[in-house]
Protein backbone atom coordinates (compact mmCIF):
# COMPACT_ATOMS: atom_id res chain seq x y z
CA UNK A 1 0.00 0.00 0.00
CA UNK A 2 2.72 2.44 1.02
CA UNK A 3 4.64 1.44 -2.06
CA UNK A 4 1.62 2.21 -4.27
CA UNK A 5 1.20 5.65 -2.74
CA UNK A 6 4.92 6.34 -3.14
CA UNK A 7 4.83 5.34 -6.81
CA UNK A 8 1.76 7.51 -7.39
CA UNK A 9 3.46 10.56 -5.87
CA UNK A 10 6.42 9.90 -8.17
CA UNK A 11 4.13 9.75 -11.18
CA UNK A 12 2.42 13.02 -10.26
CA UNK A 13 5.79 14.61 -9.53
CA UNK A 14 7.11 13.62 -12.96
CA UNK A 15 4.07 15.10 -14.70
CA UNK A 16 4.40 18.31 -12.67
CA UNK A 17 8.07 18.63 -13.63
CA UNK A 18 7.22 18.35 -17.31
CA UNK A 19 4.36 20.84 -16.98
CA UNK A 20 6.65 23.20 -15.09
CA UNK A 21 9.28 23.12 -17.82
CA UNK A 22 6.59 23.48 -20.44
CA UNK A 23 5.26 26.61 -18.75
CA UNK A 24 8.64 28.22 -19.37
CA UNK A 25 7.72 28.52 -23.05
CA UNK A 26 5.32 31.31 -22.02
CA UNK A 27 6.56 34.15 -19.85
CA UNK A 28 3.06 34.77 -18.46
CA UNK A 29 2.59 31.33 -17.04
CA UNK A 30 6.17 30.54 -16.16
CA UNK A 31 5.96 31.51 -12.50
CA UNK A 32 2.85 29.48 -11.80
CA UNK A 33 4.35 26.54 -13.67
CA UNK A 34 7.52 26.53 -11.63
CA UNK A 35 5.46 26.62 -8.45
CA UNK A 36 3.80 23.45 -9.74
CA UNK A 37 7.24 21.92 -10.27
CA UNK A 38 8.19 22.85 -6.69
CA UNK A 39 5.01 21.13 -5.53
CA UNK A 40 6.11 18.10 -7.53
CA UNK A 41 9.42 18.10 -5.70
CA UNK A 42 7.61 18.23 -2.36
CA UNK A 43 5.43 15.29 -3.40
CA UNK A 44 8.49 13.29 -4.44
CA UNK A 45 10.09 13.94 -1.04
CA UNK A 46 6.93 12.87 0.81
CA UNK A 47 6.64 9.79 -1.38
CA UNK A 48 10.23 8.81 -0.63
CA UNK A 49 9.65 9.17 3.10
CA UNK A 50 7.10 6.36 2.78
CA UNK A 51 9.76 4.02 1.43
CA UNK A 52 9.87 0.74 3.34
CA UNK A 53 13.63 0.63 3.63
CA UNK A 54 13.65 3.83 5.65
CA UNK A 55 13.79 3.12 9.36
CA UNK A 56 15.07 6.30 11.00
CA UNK A 57 13.94 9.80 10.20
CA UNK A 58 16.16 11.75 12.59
CA UNK A 59 19.07 12.04 10.20
CA UNK A 60 16.94 12.71 7.16
CA UNK A 61 15.18 15.58 8.91
CA UNK A 62 18.52 16.95 10.14
CA UNK A 63 19.84 16.92 6.59
CA UNK A 64 16.71 18.56 5.25
CA UNK A 65 16.88 21.35 7.85
CA UNK A 66 20.57 22.02 7.24
CA UNK A 67 19.96 22.07 3.50
CA UNK A 68 17.09 24.51 3.85
CA UNK A 69 19.15 26.79 6.09
CA UNK A 70 21.93 26.95 3.49
CA UNK A 71 19.70 26.99 0.44
CA UNK A 72 17.33 29.75 1.55
CA UNK A 73 19.88 32.59 1.72
CA UNK A 74 21.53 31.25 -1.44
CA UNK A 75 18.23 31.66 -3.24
CA UNK A 76 16.97 34.79 -1.56
CA UNK A 77 19.86 37.19 -1.21
CA UNK A 78 22.25 36.48 -4.04
CA UNK A 79 22.21 39.45 -6.46
CA UNK A 80 20.79 38.77 -9.92
CA UNK A 81 24.07 39.74 -11.56
CA UNK A 82 25.77 36.83 -9.83
CA UNK A 83 23.33 34.37 -11.35
CA UNK A 84 25.58 32.16 -13.49
CA UNK A 85 28.04 31.49 -10.68
CA UNK A 86 25.22 30.85 -8.24
CA UNK A 87 23.77 28.27 -10.60
CA UNK A 88 27.20 26.67 -10.98
CA UNK A 89 27.57 26.63 -7.21
CA UNK A 90 24.19 25.00 -6.87
CA UNK A 91 25.11 22.33 -9.44
CA UNK A 92 28.03 21.47 -7.28
CA UNK A 93 25.72 20.59 -4.40
CA UNK A 94 23.32 18.56 -6.52
CA UNK A 95 26.10 16.59 -8.18
CA UNK A 96 27.89 16.07 -4.88
CA UNK A 97 24.71 14.49 -3.54
CA UNK A 98 24.54 12.10 -6.50
CA UNK A 99 28.22 11.18 -6.12
CA UNK A 100 27.90 10.52 -2.39
CA UNK A 101 24.84 8.36 -2.98
CA UNK A 102 26.81 6.33 -5.52
CA UNK A 103 29.75 5.88 -3.15
CA UNK A 104 27.40 4.97 -0.30
CA UNK A 105 25.68 2.34 -2.44
CA UNK A 106 28.99 0.84 -3.49
CA UNK A 107 30.23 0.78 0.10
CA UNK A 108 27.02 -0.87 1.25
CA UNK A 109 27.27 -3.54 -1.42
CA UNK A 110 30.89 -4.59 -1.01
CA UNK A 111 32.67 -2.96 1.91
CA UNK A 112 30.57 -2.17 5.02
CA UNK A 113 30.13 -4.25 8.17
CA UNK A 114 27.55 -6.46 6.50
CA UNK A 115 28.24 -6.27 2.77
CA UNK A 116 25.49 -7.76 0.65
CA UNK A 117 28.09 -9.03 -1.83
CA UNK A 118 25.80 -9.72 -4.76
CA UNK A 119 27.27 -11.98 -7.42
CA UNK A 120 28.88 -10.36 -10.45
CA UNK A 121 26.08 -11.41 -12.80
CA UNK A 122 23.27 -9.83 -10.81
CA UNK A 123 25.06 -6.62 -9.94
CA UNK A 124 26.57 -5.85 -13.34
CA UNK A 125 23.71 -3.64 -14.53
CA UNK A 126 23.50 -1.87 -11.19
CA UNK A 127 27.23 -1.30 -11.15
CA UNK A 128 27.13 0.19 -14.64
CA UNK A 129 24.50 2.62 -13.37
CA UNK A 130 26.47 3.48 -10.23
CA UNK A 131 29.57 3.88 -12.36
CA UNK A 132 27.91 6.44 -14.63
CA UNK A 133 26.46 8.13 -11.59
CA UNK A 134 29.76 8.77 -9.83
CA UNK A 135 31.53 9.50 -13.11
CA UNK A 136 29.12 12.26 -14.15
CA UNK A 137 28.57 13.34 -10.57
CA UNK A 138 32.24 13.76 -9.67
CA UNK A 139 33.18 15.57 -12.87
CA UNK A 140 30.24 17.91 -12.37
CA UNK A 141 31.35 18.69 -8.82
CA UNK A 142 34.88 19.73 -9.74
CA UNK A 143 33.80 21.28 -13.06
CA UNK A 144 31.13 23.39 -11.38
CA UNK A 145 33.54 24.46 -8.70
CA UNK A 146 35.98 25.65 -11.35
CA UNK A 147 33.21 27.41 -13.28
CA UNK A 148 32.10 29.09 -10.07
CA UNK A 149 35.64 30.14 -9.30
CA UNK A 150 36.20 31.61 -12.75
CA UNK A 151 32.94 33.55 -12.74
CA UNK A 152 33.52 34.80 -9.21
CA UNK A 153 37.04 35.63 -10.34
CA UNK A 154 39.01 34.04 -7.56
CA UNK A 155 40.53 31.91 -10.30
CA UNK A 156 41.78 33.63 -13.43
CA UNK A 157 38.99 34.02 -15.96
CA UNK A 158 41.35 33.58 -18.87
CA UNK A 159 41.71 30.23 -20.59
CA UNK A 160 44.54 28.18 -19.11
CA UNK A 161 46.29 26.01 -21.63
CA UNK A 162 49.56 24.15 -21.70
CA UNK A 163 51.38 21.84 -23.99
CA UNK A 164 50.05 18.30 -24.17
CA UNK A 165 46.77 19.27 -22.52
CA UNK A 166 44.74 17.50 -25.16
CA UNK A 167 46.79 14.36 -24.79
CA UNK A 168 46.44 14.46 -21.01
CA UNK A 169 42.67 14.94 -21.23
CA UNK A 170 42.37 12.10 -23.68
CA UNK A 171 44.36 9.81 -21.41
CA UNK A 172 42.29 10.78 -18.37
CA UNK A 173 39.11 10.14 -20.30
CA UNK A 174 40.30 6.78 -21.57
CA UNK A 175 41.37 5.66 -18.12
CA UNK A 176 37.97 6.67 -16.69
CA UNK A 177 36.23 4.63 -19.36
CA UNK A 178 38.68 1.81 -18.67
CA UNK A 179 37.83 1.84 -14.96
CA UNK A 180 34.14 1.82 -15.79
CA UNK A 181 34.57 -1.17 -18.08
CA UNK A 182 36.64 -2.93 -15.43
CA UNK A 183 33.90 -2.30 -12.85
CA UNK A 184 31.22 -3.71 -15.12
CA UNK A 185 33.40 -6.76 -15.71
CA UNK A 186 34.23 -7.17 -12.03
CA UNK A 187 31.70 -5.14 -9.96
CA UNK A 188 33.33 -5.79 -6.59
CA UNK A 189 36.62 -4.15 -7.52
CA UNK A 190 37.28 -1.48 -4.90
CA UNK A 191 40.39 -0.05 -6.54
CA UNK A 192 38.69 0.45 -9.90
CA UNK A 193 35.78 2.21 -8.26
CA UNK A 194 37.73 4.72 -6.23
CA UNK A 195 40.25 5.45 -8.97
CA UNK A 196 37.31 6.16 -11.26
CA UNK A 197 35.95 8.68 -8.74
CA UNK A 198 39.35 10.35 -8.49
CA UNK A 199 39.84 10.45 -12.26
CA UNK A 200 36.35 11.88 -12.76
CA UNK A 201 37.18 14.74 -10.38
CA UNK A 202 40.32 15.41 -12.39
CA UNK A 203 38.38 15.36 -15.67
CA UNK A 204 35.90 17.96 -14.42
CA UNK A 205 38.79 20.19 -13.42
CA UNK A 206 40.61 19.74 -16.72
CA UNK A 207 37.49 20.29 -18.83
CA UNK A 208 36.85 23.73 -17.40
CA UNK A 209 40.28 25.35 -16.98
CA UNK A 210 40.88 25.90 -20.73
CA UNK A 211 37.58 27.76 -21.10
CA UNK A 212 37.37 31.53 -20.79
CA UNK A 213 35.04 33.36 -18.41
CA UNK A 214 32.83 34.72 -21.21
CA UNK A 215 32.04 31.22 -22.47
CA UNK A 216 31.26 29.99 -18.99
CA UNK A 217 27.42 30.06 -19.21
CA UNK A 218 27.62 27.44 -21.97
CA UNK A 219 29.73 25.27 -19.70
CA UNK A 220 27.42 25.79 -16.73
CA UNK A 221 24.55 24.63 -18.88
CA UNK A 222 26.52 21.59 -20.02
CA UNK A 223 27.35 20.78 -16.42
CA UNK A 224 23.62 21.00 -15.74
CA UNK A 225 23.20 18.31 -18.31
CA UNK A 226 25.81 16.12 -16.61
CA UNK A 227 24.19 16.66 -13.21
CA UNK A 228 20.92 15.50 -14.75
CA UNK A 229 22.53 12.43 -16.24
CA UNK A 230 24.06 11.62 -12.86
CA UNK A 231 20.60 11.85 -11.27
CA UNK A 232 19.22 9.63 -14.01
CA UNK A 233 21.92 7.04 -13.39
CA UNK A 234 21.01 7.12 -9.69
CA UNK A 235 17.49 6.26 -10.76
CA UNK A 236 18.76 3.26 -12.72
CA UNK A 237 20.86 2.14 -9.74
CA UNK A 238 18.11 2.26 -7.12
CA UNK A 239 15.22 1.54 -9.50
CA UNK A 240 13.39 4.82 -9.15
CA UNK A 241 11.53 6.26 -12.10
CA UNK A 242 11.13 9.84 -10.93
CA UNK A 243 14.91 10.14 -10.75
CA UNK A 244 15.25 8.73 -14.25
CA UNK A 245 12.62 11.09 -15.68
CA UNK A 246 13.75 14.27 -13.96
CA UNK A 247 17.36 13.44 -14.75
CA UNK A 248 16.59 12.82 -18.43
CA UNK A 249 14.66 16.12 -18.64
CA UNK A 250 17.66 17.91 -17.19
CA UNK A 251 20.13 16.04 -19.30
CA UNK A 252 18.30 16.88 -22.51
CA UNK A 253 17.59 20.49 -21.59
CA UNK A 254 21.10 21.31 -20.44
CA UNK A 255 22.56 19.85 -23.57
CA UNK A 256 20.19 21.63 -25.97
CA UNK A 257 20.53 24.88 -24.11
CA UNK A 258 24.31 24.85 -24.33
CA UNK A 259 24.10 24.24 -28.07
CA UNK A 260 21.56 27.06 -28.51
CA UNK A 261 23.71 29.42 -26.46
CA UNK A 262 26.85 28.68 -28.43
CA UNK A 263 24.91 29.31 -31.64
CA UNK A 264 23.72 32.64 -30.24
CA UNK A 265 27.37 33.59 -29.83
CA UNK A 266 27.99 32.61 -33.45
CA UNK A 267 30.27 29.83 -32.42
CA UNK A 268 29.97 26.13 -32.77
CA UNK A 269 29.57 24.05 -29.65
CA UNK A 270 32.90 22.36 -30.18
CA UNK A 271 34.54 25.72 -30.68
CA UNK A 272 33.40 26.95 -27.28
CA UNK A 273 34.56 23.81 -25.50
CA UNK A 274 37.81 23.37 -27.35
CA UNK A 275 38.39 26.82 -28.84
CA UNK A 276 41.35 27.43 -26.59
CA UNK A 277 43.10 24.41 -28.05
CA UNK A 278 42.82 25.33 -31.69
CA UNK A 279 42.04 21.74 -32.51
CA UNK A 280 40.40 18.81 -30.85
CA UNK A 281 36.80 17.74 -30.40
CA UNK A 282 37.50 14.04 -30.56
CA UNK A 283 36.96 13.81 -26.86
CA UNK A 284 33.80 15.88 -26.84
CA UNK A 285 31.94 13.72 -29.28
CA UNK A 286 32.50 10.70 -27.11
CA UNK A 287 31.80 12.53 -23.91
CA UNK A 288 28.28 13.61 -24.72
Amino acid at each position, binding site marked *: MQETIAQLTYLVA*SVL*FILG*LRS*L*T*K*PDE*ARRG*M*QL*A*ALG*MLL*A*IIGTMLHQE*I*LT*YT*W*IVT*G*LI*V*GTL*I*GYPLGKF*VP*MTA*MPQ*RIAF*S*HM*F*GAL*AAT*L*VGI*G*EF*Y*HMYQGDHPTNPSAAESRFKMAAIGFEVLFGALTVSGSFMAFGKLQEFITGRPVTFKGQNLLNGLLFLSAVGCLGWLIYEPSNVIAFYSMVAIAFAIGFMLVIPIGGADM*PVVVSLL*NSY*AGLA*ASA*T*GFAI*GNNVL*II*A*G*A*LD*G*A*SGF*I*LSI*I*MSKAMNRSFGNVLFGAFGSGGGVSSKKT
Partner: protein
Amino acid sequence: MSATGFIQLYVFILAGFVGFLVISRVPPLLHTPLMAATNAISGISLVGSIVLAGGQYGKLPTILGVIAVACAMTNVVGGFIITDRMLNMFKRGDKKDAGPKRNEAA
Protein backbone atom coordinates in the same frame (compact mmCIF):
# COMPACT_ATOMS: atom_id res chain seq x y z
CA MET B 1 20.15 -7.08 -18.50
CA SER B 2 16.81 -7.61 -16.80
CA ALA B 3 13.33 -6.66 -18.04
CA THR B 4 13.20 -3.87 -15.45
CA GLY B 5 16.41 -2.51 -16.87
CA PHE B 6 14.86 -2.31 -20.29
CA ILE B 7 11.75 -0.56 -18.99
CA GLN B 8 14.01 1.93 -17.21
CA LEU B 9 15.83 2.51 -20.46
CA TYR B 10 12.53 3.19 -22.25
CA VAL B 11 11.54 5.67 -19.54
CA PHE B 12 14.89 7.40 -19.85
CA ILE B 13 14.81 7.72 -23.64
CA LEU B 14 11.18 8.86 -23.78
CA ALA B 15 11.69 11.41 -21.01
CA GLY B 16 14.72 12.67 -22.88
CA PHE B 17 12.57 13.21 -25.98
CA VAL B 18 9.95 15.07 -23.96
CA GLY B 19 12.70 17.25 -22.56
CA PHE B 20 14.06 17.90 -26.02
CA LEU B 21 10.65 18.89 -27.45
CA VAL B 22 9.73 21.12 -24.53
CA ILE B 23 13.05 22.89 -24.19
CA SER B 24 13.52 23.64 -27.88
CA ARG B 25 10.39 25.84 -27.71
CA VAL B 26 11.57 28.00 -24.84
CA PRO B 27 12.19 31.58 -26.04
CA PRO B 28 15.73 32.98 -25.57
CA LEU B 29 14.31 35.53 -23.12
CA LEU B 30 13.66 32.73 -20.65
CA HIS B 31 16.90 30.81 -21.06
CA THR B 32 18.45 31.97 -17.81
CA PRO B 33 15.35 31.09 -15.74
CA LEU B 34 15.28 27.77 -17.58
CA MET B 35 18.81 27.07 -16.42
CA ALA B 36 17.85 27.90 -12.86
CA ALA B 37 14.73 25.76 -13.17
CA THR B 38 16.49 22.67 -14.46
CA ASN B 39 19.09 23.22 -11.76
CA ALA B 40 16.33 23.11 -9.16
CA ILE B 41 14.87 19.97 -10.71
CA SER B 42 18.26 18.26 -10.77
CA GLY B 43 18.02 18.44 -6.99
CA ILE B 44 15.83 15.36 -7.42
CA SER B 45 18.90 13.36 -6.39
CA LEU B 46 17.48 14.27 -2.97
CA VAL B 47 15.20 11.24 -3.39
CA GLY B 48 18.18 8.90 -3.69
CA SER B 49 19.91 10.65 -0.80
CA ILE B 50 16.92 10.21 1.50
CA VAL B 51 16.84 6.45 0.87
CA LEU B 52 20.56 6.21 1.64
CA ALA B 53 20.33 8.35 4.78
CA GLY B 54 17.28 6.59 6.21
CA GLY B 55 17.96 2.98 5.31
CA GLN B 56 20.08 1.08 7.82
CA TYR B 57 23.06 0.58 5.54
CA GLY B 58 25.75 1.10 8.16
CA LYS B 59 27.56 4.06 9.66
CA LEU B 60 29.48 5.45 6.68
CA PRO B 61 26.60 5.21 4.16
CA THR B 62 24.34 6.99 6.66
CA ILE B 63 26.86 9.81 7.11
CA LEU B 64 27.30 10.12 3.35
CA GLY B 65 23.53 10.02 2.98
CA VAL B 66 22.96 12.84 5.45
CA ILE B 67 25.55 15.05 3.74
CA ALA B 68 23.92 14.19 0.43
CA VAL B 69 20.46 15.10 1.77
CA ALA B 70 21.76 18.46 2.99
CA CYS B 71 23.49 19.17 -0.33
CA ALA B 72 20.54 18.16 -2.47
CA MET B 73 18.13 20.11 -0.27
CA THR B 74 20.33 23.19 -0.65
CA ASN B 75 20.09 22.75 -4.39
CA VAL B 76 16.31 22.28 -4.33
CA VAL B 77 15.43 25.14 -1.97
CA GLY B 78 17.90 27.59 -3.45
CA GLY B 79 17.02 26.60 -6.99
CA PHE B 80 13.30 27.02 -6.72
CA ILE B 81 13.51 30.28 -4.75
CA ILE B 82 15.87 31.85 -7.25
CA THR B 83 13.79 30.72 -10.22
CA ASP B 84 10.74 32.26 -8.64
CA ARG B 85 12.60 35.48 -7.97
CA MET B 86 13.80 35.61 -11.54
CA LEU B 87 10.39 34.95 -13.05
CA ASN B 88 8.86 37.53 -10.77
CA MET B 89 11.02 40.12 -12.50
CA PHE B 90 9.52 39.14 -15.82
CA LYS B 91 6.05 39.81 -14.51
CA ARG B 92 6.77 43.45 -13.76
CA GLY B 93 7.93 43.86 -17.36
CA ASP B 94 4.29 43.34 -18.44
CA LYS B 95 4.52 41.08 -21.42
CA LYS B 96 0.82 40.47 -21.82
CA ASP B 97 0.94 40.30 -25.61
CA ALA B 98 3.62 37.63 -25.67
CA GLY B 99 1.33 34.69 -24.92
CA PRO B 100 -0.73 33.59 -27.92
CA LYS B 101 -4.36 32.97 -26.95
CA ARG B 102 -4.81 29.60 -28.56
CA ASN B 103 -2.25 27.99 -26.31
CA GLU B 104 -4.27 28.70 -23.20
CA ALA B 105 -6.44 25.61 -23.51
CA ALA B 106 -3.41 23.42 -22.89
